[in-house]
Each structure stands twice: as C-alpha cells, then as structure tokens.
C-alpha cells in the first residue's frame, strides 16, 4: 500500500508536540474564565423561538374546534409510527374530523414531518419540551392533551409561513 501523503507536512516545531500541548492547555485555561452558558433549568426556563420543534400539538381554532380533518397524512408520514388517527363524520362544513387523535410521545422523535405534510396547518410543533410520564399509557396523548388554542401557537405558524 502506497503511503498517503499529508495535505501539509508538519513543521519541526509542530512535530515536537510539547509546544502544541501547551497551546491546547492555554486554550482550555482561557475557557475557564469565560462566562458560563448554563441555564439552571427548573428555576430558569428556556424560552424557545419559533423555529423550535417541541412536542406536536393540534391547532384549536378560536371557536374551540380543531382544524384537523383527519386526513391521516401525518400518521402516514410519521417515521416512528407514533400517530394514530380515526376519522369520523360531522355536520360542519369540513365533513371529516378526528374522532380519535393519539400521539404516542414515547415513539415521537420530534422530526416535524407531520407538521410539514399537514395540508391544513392543523398539527404544528409547539414550544413545549417538558414531557414526563410515569407509565406507558400516560405517554399516549389524546385530543384532550394535544389541542392547543391557536393564540399560543402563533409564533410557530408565523415561522412556518415565512419559510414556505
């Protein structure tokens, strides 16, 4: 096997290694006196921006109705098979609505494909990143937990529209 040439040969100074080590040590030492970035989480909370992908939620219109028409595309596109939708019929103008809409938050990988594929802008990624459950059943979020008033989701919707 032919010996591979380096892109750039090391100089003697670099080959001595010790000076480079000192350089590295200097760099870390400098960092020790830089300001810290840590947020002390439960006391200080991270306020995500519009582009943040937290847990997916369903948009609830001002009238308290969901936008979702249960087309099932989110469920189809979901790579983790986390979403389950059962459609039903209503008297509303959009005759189809989700009788059942469940996301298994243990499966969800927060990829946002559901949001991207949604033709009705009905499922969006919220800023909610605090997800805890004590058993598997609790991790399955139904419509009661998924529906969120549109006013709370305006940031994300604006972000989505500006990046179409």
């Amino acid at each position, binding site marked *: 096997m032919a010996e591979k040439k380096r892109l750039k040969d090391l100089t003697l100074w670099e080959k001595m290694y010790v000076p480079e080590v000192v350089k590295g040590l200097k760099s870390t030492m400098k960092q020790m006196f830089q300001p810290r970035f840590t947020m002390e989480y439960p006391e200080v909370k991270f306020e995500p921006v519009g582009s943040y992908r937290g847990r997916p939620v369903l948009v609830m219109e001002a009238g308290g109705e969901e936008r979702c*028409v249960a087309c099932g595309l989110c469920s189809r596109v979901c790579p983790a098979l986390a979403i389950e939708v059962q459609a039903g019929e209503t008297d509303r103008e959009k005759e189809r609505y989700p009788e059942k809409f469940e996301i298994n938050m243990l499966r969800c990988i927060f990829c946002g494909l559901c949001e991207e594929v949604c033709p009705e802008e009905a499922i969006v990624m919220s800023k909610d990143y605090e997800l805890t459950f004590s058993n598997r059943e609790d991790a399955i979020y139904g419509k009661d937990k998924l529906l969120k008033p549109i006013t709370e989701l305006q940031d994300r919707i604006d972000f989505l529209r500006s990046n179409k």
Partner: protein
Amino acid sequence: MGKLTIDGREVEFRQGQTIIEAATDSGIDIPHFCWHPSLSVSGNCRVCLVEIEKMPKLAIACATVAAEGMVVHTKSDKALSARNAVMEFILINHPLDCPICDEAGECKLQDYAYNHSTGEGRFTEEKQHKDKRVELGPYVMFDAERCISCSRCIRFCDEVAQETELTFVKRGDRVTITTFPGKQLDNPYSLNVTDICPVGALTNRDFRFKSRVWDMSSTQSVCSGCSRGCNIDIWVRKNEILRLTPRHNEQVNSYWMCDHGRLDTFKEVNSESRIIAPMLRRDGTLMQANWSEAVAHITSEFKAFSSDEIGVIGSAHATLEDNYLLAKFAKEILKTKNVAMPSHIKHGTADKILITEDKSPNALGAKLMGITSENFAVIMHAIETGKIKALYVMEEDLVALDHKFEAILAKLDFLVVHSVVKNATTALANVVLPAASYAEKNGTWVNINGMAQRIRPAVATQELDRSLDGMSLSRLDKFGTNFDRWGQVNKIDARPSWSFITMLFNSFGHKLKFKMAEEVFHDVAKHVKEFHGLDYDVMGNQGAKISLVAEKV
C-alpha cells in the same frame, strides 16, 4: 387478428377492438376516466386522446376502432399536451378535497394529476359550488363538486344493474348527476358505482371515513353470500374487516358484486357475539374450557353411543377441507351413515346478474365430499323419534333455519356445535367450539358452476400470526412490532373446523398429521376424482374449474 403499433411496439388486436382495448390486452396503459372494460363507450372525458399517424386530429383511444397498420403514439408531444390540457380542464372545478376525501389513495384523478398533469392550473376564479352531501340511495353518498361527469355510474345502472336510476341534469360546468324523480339509487348492485367512480364523488356510506385505504391490508378471497362465489378483496385494519370490494374475475363475477354480499357477510366476523373460546356444558351452563378438554370430552361422550345413534351435520358454509374431514370422521371413526347438511336454497331469489338461489357458498363442494342435503330431513326425523341421540353440527345454525328444530334438538343427549357466533343452536349445545370464520382460514369453495376458488385468512386469530403465516400486511403490520397497540387487538381463539376434527381423529387413536388446509386439500385431490390435478397454486387467485364431467361418468 390484426396488428397495430402503439408507442413503437407492435400489438395484436381482434377485429372490432378499440385502440384502448388492444393496448390494455397488451399491458399498455392509456389514461382513461370514462372508459370501463365492462361498460359501453361514452367518450366524454377525453383524457385518452392519442396521436394516430395519418389522422388529421388527435383521437380518443376508447372510441377509435383499431385497424391494420395503425401507428399510435400515446406519449408524443401532441398527445401529452392534449392530455395535460384535459387534466387542467377537469381540475378547474374539482375541489381540493383530498384530505377529507375517502377516495384519496385509490383515486384515478389523484394518480393522473400526479402522472399526467403539469401540476399547475391557470384558473384563478371561484370554483363551482354544488351539493356536497347527497344521499343518492340507502348505501351511496354523492358529492356533486367532486364529480367529473364521466357517466360511468349512469352506464352501470343502465347496462349492468339494468335499472335506469341515474342521469345527468343541467349543462356546462353546472352539470350534475341525480336520480330520476321518485327514484333512488337502490338496486341490489348499487354500491358498485362507488368502485367504478374514478373520483370520490360516490362513496360507500357504510365505509365512509372509517379508514384511509393505505392503512388497510387487502386479502384476496371469495364472497360467502351465495353460491356465485364472487371474487372479493377483504380490507382489514387493526384486525377488523372494514369493507369488501369486488375483485375482477371474468369467469365468475366480472367486476361486480351485490350489496348484500358487500355489506352483510363480513359483519359476523367483527361481531360482538363471537365465541371466543371452547365451551363445555357443566351442570346445565356453558363454561369456558380449553381445546384439549373439549377434545377429551367429545371423545369420551361419543364412545357411549352406538354408531346408529350418532348424526353428523356438515355445512355448505364451511370449506371443502372442513367437509372432507367431517365426512371422513363420520365414516371412519363414528362409522355412521347419518351424514347430511341442510340446504340453503331460497326459491325465487335469483336474478339474471349474479345473485343465485342457493345462499351458501360451497353447496357443490360439500356435496362432492359426500355430504348431501337429501338425508337432512331423515336425520331430523330420526332425532325427533329418538333414534339419533348424539349430533355433531359443523358451522350451521339449525334453529335459524326452522324454529321447530329447537324442540327437536332439545331431545338430544349430546350436541356438539362448531360455530362462528353465539346463536340459538349453540345455546342448546353440550360442547360449543369457536370456528374460524371464512376470513380467518385457508380453504376452498366450489361455486354453483364448479369453480373451485381459494379463500384466504384476512383476520388474525390467536393461532395465526400475520407475518409468519403469510397473511397480507398493511403498512402498520409491516413496520410495527407485535407489541404495538394495533398488533394484538381483536384476536380470538378460534380454529378452523378441519383443524379441530384432526385433533378429534388423533384423540380417537387415528393418526392424522394435517397442519395446514393445503395438506387437507392435497388429500382431497388424491381421493376425489373431480379435484384430480388441483392444488392451491393451480387455483391461484382466479380459481379453477373442476372436472364435473367425471361425476356423471
């Protein structure tokens, strides 16, 4: 036989065939909405426009008769631009309803918009608004906005169902479909219009919004509604049958099936009153037991009767394999000649299209296995007079056939019943065995014309595993695991009758090693001359005609 050239390929045609027919026969797909192989040509959708050399204008492939030496281009620039234009026209007034439309996923318009359209329309005006929820009949819902006026449904009613019920009214973009005054879309075949509708304008009210098509698995099977044996697809999601659709088989049912078969036959499989485990009568009440207890109990009880005291009732609803082993069991183990099955013929109920008088799917098959209906009355009489004291009933609800049988069956000392659901006959039984329904087992049915056709399991039972037993899989079945919530739902502990009878054989000391219905069928093919040379592969998905001539010789 003449020859024409389509897209540079030489294609044979029969005299009088249109271009689209010749193309379809040779596996060339020409886009079409209004043309249907089993309906007359209407030629109003224009999407099958093709370029034919030496013709001044483009012609529609569905109405142009093929001629010797014709050179047809379906993908030339002219043909493509015409097709794009037609698609653009059709889409002008078609609403963007796909998210709420049941047809999405199996919609011709969706497919063609994807494959044969530029993807852009220049129409910026308001679309036509029409009625979106019209009940055309008891089973069919009509969405006028989605209709592309192909007239397939009108032609179907006129030509196939032979009941003129539908028509166009109004002109131009206001054109819509309606029923004639005082009439409804209410013929016995009305739901076929939802299958042939190329868009989501006509939908099945029974299936509406139940599931997206891509979430279901489809299994090729045969309708159990009558002895026609229409070929069907069983559509299943979460181990529950959601709809049946006809499957093309020119020798049996063409593209059609009746509403009764489509709507009424599968409800039993999903039913709440399914028997979920074997039951034994102890101290007067039926108690749940396991399979080996049931086998042991039946074996010891039957040994107490002489062979003349035992009767066996087979069924035209059960498969060939079930009846074959039942007849073998009666002959070789019970040594009784009291074998029969009830007839399900209802005189005067047949029509000239598909529906037959015999309401069971396998009467001919059961007969060929040696179980006839002639003896049935004799056996019932023998029970009444007390000559027959023990009865083995397979997949028949005798009480439902005739209410006076209730009193007769009550006289029996011992009654074993295989049944799919709880009914009046199982209420009288000493042993009730949960039988796998036609959607839960492999088997064979022979229709009225001697077509042996396969049924396949579409719904998993506790002993059937979707992926291991080669059942058809939906996307969720394929990519999910057995631990998902949709993986283990609605599974009941039912077994095919032939498999239980095999257990009985072994319990009586007669070794049988059948593990699959296919092995039973091989035995049938070996011993019954009508079935010589047949196996599951030969029958395939279009069935095979059995040699009925041999029977007469």
